[in-house]
């Protein structure tokens, strides 16, 4: 019957967890797959997947960031035709989100931001490097590292202000962290 006091906050409902995960996965997939910015001189792209992960980690906490970040980017890989990377992407981006969420859980200050950036970059680029190394050699795998670092730079540089702006424009969001 009726919920007791501890469970009466919406963020504890199973349905709410399912809903927030599903929506944030969709957000991450769309940010990764659709939102891309060409980097001026080279022909490469930066996608906004990491922006979505930083945003999720700060506003929804580590567990949501782990699952939404991992699954969202893995689905983007699948649809883009890189299905073989999807399982690795899940761990690389999932752990990235988890770490940012854990480090910035209590408060957001300069030290925390720097730490979360370093941890996110090391884990994400590291996992990709090691698996790519096993798959096609540790020499060729080096080629991916600069791009992955750049992804994290964009992630934190856009994700943090984005989280702040959304929180300001839609205050109820602070009740959604779990």
């Amino acid at each position, binding site marked *: *019957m*009726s919920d007791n006091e501890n469970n009466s906050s919406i963020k504890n409902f199973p349905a709410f967890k399912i809903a927030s995960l599903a929506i944030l996965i969709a957000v991450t997939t769309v940010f990764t797959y659709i939102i891309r910015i060409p980097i001026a001189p080279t022909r490469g792209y930066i996608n906004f997947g990491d922006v979505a992960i930083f945003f999720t980690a700060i506003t929804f906490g580590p567990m949501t960031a782990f699952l939404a970040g991992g699954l969202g980017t893995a689905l983007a890989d699948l649809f883009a035709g890189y299905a073989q990377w999807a399982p690795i992407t899940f761990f690389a981006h999932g752990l990235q989100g988890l770490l940012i969420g854990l480090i910035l859980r209590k408060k957001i200050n300069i030290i925390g931001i720097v730490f979360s950036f370093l941890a996110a970059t090391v884990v994400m680029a590291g996992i990709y490097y090691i698996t790519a190394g096993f798959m096609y050699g540790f020499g060729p795998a080096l080629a991916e590292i600069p791009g992955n670092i750049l992804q994290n730079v964009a992630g934190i540089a856009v994700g943090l202000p984005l989280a702040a*702006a959304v929180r*300001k*424009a*839609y*205050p*109820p969001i602070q009740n959604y962290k779990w």
Partner: protein
Amino acid sequence: MKEILKIENLKYKYPSYPNLDFPQLLNGINLTINTGDFIVILGKPETGKSTLLKIILSLIPRYTKGILSGKIEYKGIPVANYNPYDLIEKIGAVFQNPDEQIFTTSCDTEIAFALESLGLNREEMIRRVNKSFEVLKIEHLRNRNPATLSGGEKKKLLMACLYAANPQIWLLDEIIDELDPGSALSIVQRLIAEKRTVILFSSKMLNIFKDISCNFFILKNGILLAADKMKNSDFNMLMADEGLVIDNKHEALTPVQRLNPERMVLIENLKYKYPGNIDFNLHIDNFHIEKGEIVSLAGKNGSGKSTLGKLIAGLKEKESGLLSVKGKNNLSCAYLFQNPDYQIFLPTVKDELSFGLKLTDIEIEDTISKFKLPNRDVPPSLMSYGARKRLQAAVYYLMDRDIYILDEADAGLSLKDFDMLINILYKKAKSILIISHNLDLCTRYSNRVYLIDSGKIVKEIETDLQNTLDTYFMTESSNL
């Protein structure tokens, strides 16, 4: 007759935020409903219909705290004693926006969803799913992805979901609008025959209600007014007052001055190809908007009317043909999307209004009072839907565009508010284009109506609008 739902002195007020206080929304609702009743609750937008529905489903105060008092009982037990997931077989609902209630990627799975929650065995699920497809006459949609359905089809699918779960009480929020009158009527009649209780919420008086014996209530100032407790003439007057029926008498607008015609928009032989797999392409032979005109573009969902609007606004690239818009660049048009939230992103009303503009305090205050906005420091995302729509119009009003394109802009606005918006915008605009599926609305404001279907203009009507349209359609519903 057995009493199934009893509401006594129900009061509710949404929680306040700093700088934003909501009025007492429900102020003593009394309603007793018996098994097999068909009840229509009419009320202009924002009178609390959807809120009442959520309280009946015990979603409020579960999701939105606020101040709630009074009694609401299902078969003698307060609904607050139930969790929403315990209500599947008791009270079911179809919300206004179907997209928010569809979870899966195939129609049969969608219908089976609630049955799986009930733990029914597979044979029973298959039987009920099949039966629901049959009753709603949507067998052909069985393996379709719900995302690809039209608005009306989605609503039928959601009704099929309810039919399979078979709740005692059906709560239907603004869902008849998009269904064709014939099937809407037959569904409701069937439910009544099966001793289901139906409560329908609507912001418009529709003709189909007249063909079913039902009890009308009007929700006004937080209380329910029963139609059978007032004189017929009073009821009709009240409906007109509240804008529940659209009368064709909007006199505030001056008729067009055709002495010095100036083309604002001219289209000849315009072609647009939809990306991806769509059955038709847009092909507009002739279309024009003169200075000072309010032109309407009426058509069904998916007829291409929004696409044409976006082409004029410069949001889409034509394939070939002539499209000339006065003022050349794409900043001569304002396009008001149906959903006001597309444009809202800043922390306060003041920020939102002055984004990219240099406004004085007086201009801001003037706009706020003109568009009846709460106050300058409110976060727009927390305001009511109607207030957000007025803010959206205010934003474009301040940008001084020549042509204002309103895409289904009446949705969620009371008729009075929409009248007000048209009046204010018309003072500034050189021309207005109203895009709508509602013909009554088009004829209320327009000098000319274009009818669009399958990407082509099928008729242009200029004189004696109402009669021409009536003879052209000869249908029950004024909704295309």
